[in-house]
């Protein structure tokens, strides 16, 4: 132990130069599976999140599912900071799903940081206070004379020192301080938060250790595939089960009737369970299913467009916000601009296809799931199968990409049902085609926009009829910033399953709104960035239901102007700069894209500048930058070529050959700049995504004069962009 501590301390001081600027601290924590270290051996466990053994081993619990957003790293780092341990001394353990112990556990809405930042600081600080109190008692000195660093308490006057491990047993007997009033560090003295710290699972990732849901192995486990109707939600009339049961390796083949009529319950289908997944999948090639007729079969991409257009001409279902008199303002305006914007259904396309492993035994279920929402998953399984929630154990595996897809638990209830029917542990794995054709897609949306500017170039009227699922929010920008404003919606009822996809709502709305603002800037003959700053002035005070703070947005706009050289640097010939901003998930982001369009119409993104304000503290700078860069790649990837089209009520695209994801050759540098402001820290998984799409389209306009009003860009510029 002494040796490893030595090494750890040296490594703390080791700073690795990182290519492309910045430094990465060469400190690593290890991770452990739940139960790998016997919890009983910890004499000091002041709360559910911290365990310290007498040999100074410190285990911190990561409560939320890890889907690549970095919370298995960042949340324990917050505890570690206030505990005053060295990150190299920490072992991180993934929590089981148990909300009675850990509070709400989920990965969504970029909420892990805002919901846990303060509390995790207090958990760490309370443990530290008890350790310090233990030292004070042991040495009979005042608490105020003690200092802590690297999991050690020191009394400088007497030169006495003790590790947290040595103090653990005594600390456990000290009264626990009140979390609400426990003393916290001055953030200026933080040693760990705000640094670039490599992820806790990195070693396992680079050596190929089993970490993900798809890697789970349970003794005696069988493998399943599950075929559902290509028309969403249709039931099974019949299937050639006898033939399937004769295929090599097949143990069970049966029809699942489905429970609940909504697309959120257990969907009907045919399960094939075999000794290997290969055998199950091979048997499935012989499967013939007769599906019941279903009304969704009448729906198609063309039907959506036509219906949306018809709805736009009818009175709206709902007026979300109305200020002033748009019609009078349009009549009096200098210039009026009208445009229709469209964004398609898109798939989450998590690289790890949906999967889940389940074992039903003696009335109890044990589940291993890559899920962003374990507790709702437990409730879904409980309700569908009639098993009490407390009889369902859920292990949280690392998730091979979530992006909101795994907020749903359809794969979980399928695996649980199939495992109970099969009477054995079963791992259900969807094929890529299952995954892409049975998504909960980002809903398509249509925006019918009309705007006007006056002689001075100020926006005087704005009307937005949105035909989409009814998710437009009252506070959606530019509401309150334009005197005559009308936001209304028509709901298009349809049978395609939809759900939240990274920055839900915002990922489409920002495209329409920030592109249309650009159109108005050009109509007013104004610089598009200055036009936005003017629009945000004066800032309106935040009101109930609208937390948007225009001053913070102006801050990031000004930062991105400076960093991108907007207005002060002439881009290379043929290059255009585009700007956009968006507020979502409590984060303020302004982005500039530099792009060009080649002679054949191929879009090239040269660089993206991101300016973000997520409050007073970045937890892990490496993770935060990675999220921003990934968000920009993700947004551009979607904008260039991604679309799920619907024919006869079914998703057409099934794999990456027809649903292209951006690859290395089209990747681009992303410069990330954070503006630190005196606001509570907020999450990083989503808010950097929405602005990049309109910023790209605005850059294409600046470069070519061609306005992109419909996504994906695809072949609109004469070349198949993807």
């Amino acid at each position, binding site marked *: 132990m002494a040796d490893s501590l030595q090494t750890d301390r040296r490594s703390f001081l080791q700073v690795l130069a*990182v*290519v*492309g600027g910045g430094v*990465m601290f*060469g400190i690593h924590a290890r991770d452990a599976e739940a139960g790998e270290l016997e919890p009983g051996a910890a004499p000091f466990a002041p709360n559910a999140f911290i365990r310290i053994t007498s040999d100074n081993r410190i285990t911190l619990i990561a409560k939320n599912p890890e*889907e*690549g957003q970095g919370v298995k790293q960042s949340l324990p780092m917050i505890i570690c900071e206030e505990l005053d341990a060295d990150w190299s001394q920490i072992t991180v353990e993934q929590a089981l799903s148990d909300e009675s112990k850990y509070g709400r556990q989920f990965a969504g809405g970029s909420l892990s940081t805002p919901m846990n930042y303060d509390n995790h600081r207090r958990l760490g600080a309370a443990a530290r206070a008890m350790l310090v109190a233990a030292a004070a008692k042991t040495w009979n000195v005042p608490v105020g004379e003690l200092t802590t660093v690297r999991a050690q308490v020191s009394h400088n006057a007497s030169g006495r020192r003790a590790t947290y491990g040595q103090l653990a047993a005594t600390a456990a007997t000290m009264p626990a301080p009140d979390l609400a009033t426990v003393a916290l560090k001055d953030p200026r003295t933080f040693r760990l938060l705000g640094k670039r*710290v*490599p*992820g806790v*699972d*990195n*070693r396992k*990732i*680079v*050596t*190929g*250790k*089993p*970490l*993900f849901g*798809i*890697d789970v*192995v349970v003794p005696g486990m069988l493998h399943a595939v599950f075929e559902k109707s290509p028309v969403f939600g249709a039931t099974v009339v019949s299937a050639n089960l006898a033939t399937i049961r004769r295929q*090599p390796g097949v143990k069970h083949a049966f029809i699942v009737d489905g429970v609940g009529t909504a697309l959120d319950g257990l969907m009907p289908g045919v399960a094939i369970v075999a000794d*290997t*997944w*290969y055998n199950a999948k*091979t048997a499935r090639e012989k499967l013939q299913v007769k599906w019941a007729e279903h009304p969704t079969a009448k729906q198609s991409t063309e039907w959506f467009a036509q219906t949306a257009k018809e709805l736009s001409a009818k009175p709206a279902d709902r007026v979300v916000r109305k200020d002033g008199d748009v019609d009078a303002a349009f009549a009096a305006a200098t210039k009026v601009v009208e445009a229709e914007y469209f964004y398609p259904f898109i798939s989450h*396309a*998590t*690289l790890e*296809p949906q999967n889940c492993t389940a074992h039903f035994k003696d009335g109890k279920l044990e589940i291993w799931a890559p899920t962003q929402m374990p507790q709702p998953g437990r409730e879904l399984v409980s309700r569908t199968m009639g098993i009490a929630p407390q009889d369902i154990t859920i292990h949280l595996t*690392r*998730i*091979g*990409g*979530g*992006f909101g897809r795994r907020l749903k638990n359809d794969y979980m209830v399928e695996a649980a049902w199939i495992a109970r029917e099969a009477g054995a542990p079963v791992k259900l*794995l969807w094929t*890529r085609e299952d995954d892409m054709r049975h998504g909960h897609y980002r809903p398509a949306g249509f925006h019918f926009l009309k705007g006007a500017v006056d002689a001075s170039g100020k926006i005087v009227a704005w009307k937005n009829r949105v035909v989409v699922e009814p998710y437009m929010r009252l506070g959606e920008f530019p509401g309150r910033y334009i005197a005559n404003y009308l936001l209304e919606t028509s709901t298009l009822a349809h049978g395609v399953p939809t759900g939240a996809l990274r920055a839900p709502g915002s990922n489409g709305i920002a495209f329409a709104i920030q592109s249309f603002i650009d159109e108005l800037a050009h109509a007013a003959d104004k610089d598009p960035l200055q036009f936005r700053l003017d629009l945000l002035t004066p800032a309106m005070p935040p009101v109930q239901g609208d937390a948007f703070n225009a001053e913070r947005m102006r801050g990031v706009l000004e930062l991105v102007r400076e960093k991108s050289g907007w207005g002060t640097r002439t881009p290379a010939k043929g290059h255009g700069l585009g700007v956009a901003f968006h507020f979502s998930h409590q984060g303020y982001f302004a982005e500039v894209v530099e792009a060009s369009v080649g002679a054949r119409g191929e879009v090239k993104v040269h660089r993206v500048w991101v300016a973000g304000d997520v409050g007073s503290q970045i937890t892990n700078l*490496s*993770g935060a930058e*990675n*999220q921003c*860069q*990934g968000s920009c*790649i*993700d947004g551009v*990837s979607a904008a260039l070529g991604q679309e799920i089209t619907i024919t006869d009520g079914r998703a057409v695209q099934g*794999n*990456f*050959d027809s649903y292209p*994801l951006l*690859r*290395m*050759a089209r*990747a681009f*540098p*992303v410069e990330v700049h954070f503006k630190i402001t005196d606001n509570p820290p907020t999450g990083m998984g989503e808010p950097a995504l929405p602005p990049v799409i309109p910023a790209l389209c605005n850059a294409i306009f600046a470069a070519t004069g061609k306005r992109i009003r419909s996504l994906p860009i695809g072949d609109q510029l004469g070349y198949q962009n993807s």
Partner: protein
Amino acid sequence: MPISLTINGKPTTVDVPPEMPLLWVLRDVLNLKGTKYGCGISQCGACTVHLAGAPVRSCGIPISAASGMSITTIEGLSATGSHPVQKAWEQLDVAQCGYCQAGQIMTAVSLLRNKKNPTDADIDAAMQNICRCGTYNRIRDAIRLAARSAPAGATPARAPGDDLTGEE
């Protein structure tokens, strides 16, 4: 039908259908879970391994086509993460979800074996694997870091003390 091959330096015999893809033999028969399934149609590269020293997409290789050959998976690169490419990946904190990274690393190792100092164009051409999380910039940086940190005179793909690999 029993098929013999060498996996990460170890002679191995498996008794599976001859059409079974190498990917599923590795994952479900030999329990080597590092090689990942992403698409099954040679599109994403998550399943990349080295077959006779060259990077291949194991989802598209029937096990019979690998008979008698030498295969290296991510587990065979080094179990401890000591390979320069693994080290670079870890140091630059490349991964987000991490699911694609075994395939990315195996592809990068091959690239560096062929080109000690790859240009951007070399990287673009060789690195065709999908990263859904969009970690391409860090992958590029990590390849450069690995190229620089390879010991002088040594093959960049191999560091002293690496666990053995079965190929070459």
